């Protein structure tokens, strides 16, 4: 594993996986005071340079054994709200927690898992996509191994 650290997010990246830590890009129509927080994308397959926050543009390229992880920071204003009420990132994902209904975008065969929580005083979303049922046994254990390595430093994630 290699530790990847940038913009206040840190994660241990398994060998052969790709990681990108980015900052949300201002979009036309954004409010003047819109905050542009960082986010992490982690994948067992090559990520395209242009992707949506929840992996649009990348998840279409997944094979059945692939996994895509997005960790999105929603800032301090989202922290501890009812949606982000869970304290801390999940440390372990159950295979039974993955389903097609959890996907942001339904792609036949894919399974998803989405969690809202508050970490380091910030609202955070963990979103995991599996390319297919095969990844339940091959990739979920790897996801569970790296989840505890994901951390946030408050100073680094100022918008």
């Amino acid at each position, binding site marked *: 594993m*290699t530790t990847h650290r940038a913009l206040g997010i840190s994660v241990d990246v398994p*060998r052969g996986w*790709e990681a*990108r830590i*980015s900052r949300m*890009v201002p979009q036309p129509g954004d409010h003047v005071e819109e905050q542009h927080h960082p986010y992490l994308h982690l994948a067992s397959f090559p990520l395209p*340079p*242009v992707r949506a*926050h929840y992996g*649009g543009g990348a998840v279409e390229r997944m094979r059945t054994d692939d996994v895509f992880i997005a960790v999105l920071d929603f800032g301090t204003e989202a922290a501890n709200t009812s949606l982000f009420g869970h304290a801390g990132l999940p440390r372990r994902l159950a295979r039974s927690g993955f389903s097609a209904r959890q996907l942001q975008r339904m792609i036949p065969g894919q399974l998803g898992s989405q969690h809202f929580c508050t970490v380091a005083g910030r609202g955070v979303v963990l979103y995991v996509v599996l390319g297919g049922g095969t990844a339940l046994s091959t990739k979920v254990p790897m996801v569970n191994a790296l989840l505890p390595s994901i951390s946030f430093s408050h100073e680094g994630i100022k918008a």
Partner: protein
Amino acid sequence: MTVVVVIEAVVLLVLGLVVAGLLASYSGLNERIRRVEGRAPQQRLPPDDFALTPVEGHREDGTTVLQLVGRTPLGDEVILPTAGVDHDLLVAFLSSGCTSCGSLWADLREGRLPVLPAYLRLVVVTRGVTDESPAAIADLAPDDIDVLMSTEIWEDFSTPGSPYFAYVEGATGRVVGEGTALSWTQVLALVATSSGDAAVVSETGRDLAKPRSDRDRENGVDLLLLNAGILPGDPSLYPTPAIEVALNGEVS
């Protein structure tokens, strides 16, 4: 008559010397300007090598690169694996100031990159942000090509200058081919040599030249649609034409 011919010959000789002197002076000034701008390659490649020269056995220690770590011109921090993956990697070392890189950048930007085999991933690597301007690189690079800025990667590959290309075997991360080239067609020859895939060079290549503004606009629209959850093929992108609705309405 003889005197006239001799005078003409002397005049031509003097003019020739003046022209040669001017050319040498221009070349020296040009090189000095490039050095002052900090854009000159640290080590100039010998002219004989400034054509495709895949180097076999150049790396006696069998250099292996496990990953590329760098920053994109837009500020993304990236770890990109080069070993233990099921695709090979073509690393293109380019810079903003090297004259020979200009046409390579332009081909990338304007969609004139030849078709690369499906097992090959292209990553452009420039020097890091202390040596190159992210804004200048962002201006040169297209959005749909991976571009990393990292002086460390240049050092890891012992890159002698730019343009320079390295072929990395995905299974092992071993550098199996490297060299310089002045066009993407020449790069394909390096790919063919390194991968043993002769079919690569028989590709005719795409002719997808498109104005950059069109590509930028398309990329922007694609990103907006992706963020809204609308993917390629979404039915909402193909509304039923009004005439069809009208006809179906009459039928039903």
